[in-house]
């Protein structure tokens, strides 16, 4: 019976069906299943499957994104029950993600966010055109491990440096790793602003993030 439920949970992720995922999460709570188990034996199985078929070229980006959203919806539904039980889902790390001030390029940043959360990071996506102060504030608020900064314009990439300098000033630089990305970002730039790494795509961003928090 429970196995069948787990199976359905995994399927809801494969189908990218958020409504079904929410309903199944509720059903799990009602039948007293441990939310952590619902996640690890049910939903995550689906996420991993989508991830695998994506990696070997069978699934496409929209399927991955929809699976990610269904997963998020399921976890959000289970959240209150986890709090009640005093447990929490293990995440690889907390990431504050934003496109920097003056820049409205969104797609790349959002894809990085989707891939990171599908891979087990807790992502706080602040959107586009985000002032440095707001990024710093969020870093402090959620006690972030990582900051991801997207900049696609040569005129806005300086803001990546601004955030790093600001973290430095506040003495947070050792604790918070910074990864950067976007069209004009190069290895040289990363070295110059002393960021901790960059990636040219979202899959690479996940590998980078894992390295930076020390999981691989």
């Amino acid at each position, binding site marked *: 019976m429970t196995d069948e439920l787990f199976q359905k949970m995994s399927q809801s992720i494969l189908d990218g069906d958020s409504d079904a995922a929410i309903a199944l999460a509720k059903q799990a709570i009602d039948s007293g299943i441990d939310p952590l188990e619902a996640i690890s034996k049910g939903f995550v199985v689906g996420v991993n499957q989508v991830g695998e078929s994506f990696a070997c070229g069978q699934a496409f980006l*929209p399927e991955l994104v929809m699976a990610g959203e269904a997963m998020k919806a399921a976890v959000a539904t289970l959240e209150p029950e986890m709090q009640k039980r005093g447990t929490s889902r293990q995440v690889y790390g907390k990431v504050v993600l934003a496109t920097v001030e003056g820049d409205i390029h969104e797609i790349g940043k959002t*894809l990085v966010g989707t891939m990171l959360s599908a891979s087990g990071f807790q992502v706080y996506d602040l959107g586009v055109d985000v002032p440095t102060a707001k990024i710093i504030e969020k870093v402090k608020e959620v006690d972030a491990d990582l900051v991801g900064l997207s900049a696609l314009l*040569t*005129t806005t990439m300086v803001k990546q440096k601004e955030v790093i300098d600001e973290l430095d000033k506040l003495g947070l630089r050792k604790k918070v790793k910074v990864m950067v990305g976007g069209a004009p970002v190069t290895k040289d730039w990363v070295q110059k602003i002393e960021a901790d790494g960059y990636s040219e795509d979202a899959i690479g961003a996940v590998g980078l993030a894992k390295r930076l928090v020390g999981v691989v």
Partner: protein
Amino acid sequence: MSKKIKSITNPKLHLEILTPQEVKKIHDATLWIIEKVGVRFPSKRALEIWAANGAQVDAEKMVVRAKAELIEKALKTCPPVYQLAARDPQQDLPLDGNHVFVGTDGCGVEVLDIHSGKRRVSCLQDVRDISLIADATEEVGFHWVPVSAQDMPPETRGLHEIKAIWENSTKHVQTESIYNEQEARAAVEMAGLLVGGKDKLRHRPVLSLMQCSASPLGHDGGSLDAALVAGEYGIPTGFMSMAANLTTGPATLAGNLAVGNAEVIAGTALIQLAFPGAPVFYAAAQTASDLRTGAYTGGGPEDFLYGAATNVLSDFYDIPLSMGSFATGAKEPNWQAGIENSLSTFMACIVMSDMLLGVGFLHGSRIWSFAEMMMDCELFSIIHKTMQGIIVDDETLALDAIAAVGPGGNFLSQKHTLKHMRDLFLPQFMDRRPYNEWETKKDDARDWALAKALKTLETHQPDPLDEKIKLEMSKIISSLESK
């Protein structure tokens, strides 16, 4: 050096990519989107203009919903025909629906160094070099700021860039790298120096401003404010949609065209409401996102179809079009670059798009290559020739020559041949040599194209810009820097 500019005109080839009914359906869908879904205008000035004209404005979300009648009325004041003026009036470009002009592509972030071939960050000297070569190249009708002058301060970079172009070329300058009000106002002052005052720009717009819309269904605040400055001074301006299937637009082509059209049309209507009769153009570089990575592909069959379909839309609204063609996703000038740039440019030409952007880029509008620039120019020449089609009349049927040669023999010594041989296309960069000659040298188009660019750079002397004007321009720029 010749001041001639090559453009496609009086074409013989035609293509009906959308029927009038289909265009109407897209137009109706567009009006529905603008009225029911709305378009985001994150600029105080823009929202005030919309509100004053009776559109429904959601101030908090900065979304505007406007009735079909308002949009259609506003669009009526767009001038259908106007000119892009050049520093040298001989090089003015009529946007009259019967000319296709090509520009350099714009805003690149890296350059394959013309001497070393190494990839590096772009700088002001690159802007100078590229504009100088473009000045001497007849296929290039006008400039976009080709790459970013990353050695200049971000707040005035766009101004240093246009100054560098004017110093190295007499052709029209269109920039896509000025996207805030302050820089736009300074650019207007600078352009004014070339025509005897900024109030004269209306008649001699030596500068035009291209802005991007923010797909889906939005605009950028700074870009809107800059476009409004252009409208105020009668400088041509246009909004370019890059709505891409899958990410910033629906997966279907018609739906994506409707999204892009709604952005462009709403932006255009705004400029007309503020400044009726201001010269505006339609701009688009729609494409599909890659299914696996979401990357902006800038090539492929979808791109080619958009290239042709968009001009049908801009014709429907009776405004000139600036169409993104070229701009291959290839990493070096190769098979992919050849296919993508040929087909996208051919499709945009066969429907007579007024402006094509542009020559010179690799890696999806990011890396400038001088070889690619020259090969893209040759590609345009090939299409230019193809578009002339086949002329059938007594002279071209050549019956006298055919009778004189008779069965057998050849046409090499005919007067008719001598008269018409130059009608045939003579390539600069195609390899038509004997095999063994190639085998010993193993060079190809890329080497020859690069050599041509280098030679032009070393030898071409553009008409200099008046020293006093240069000085005044520098003053305008530094007044913004000292702040």
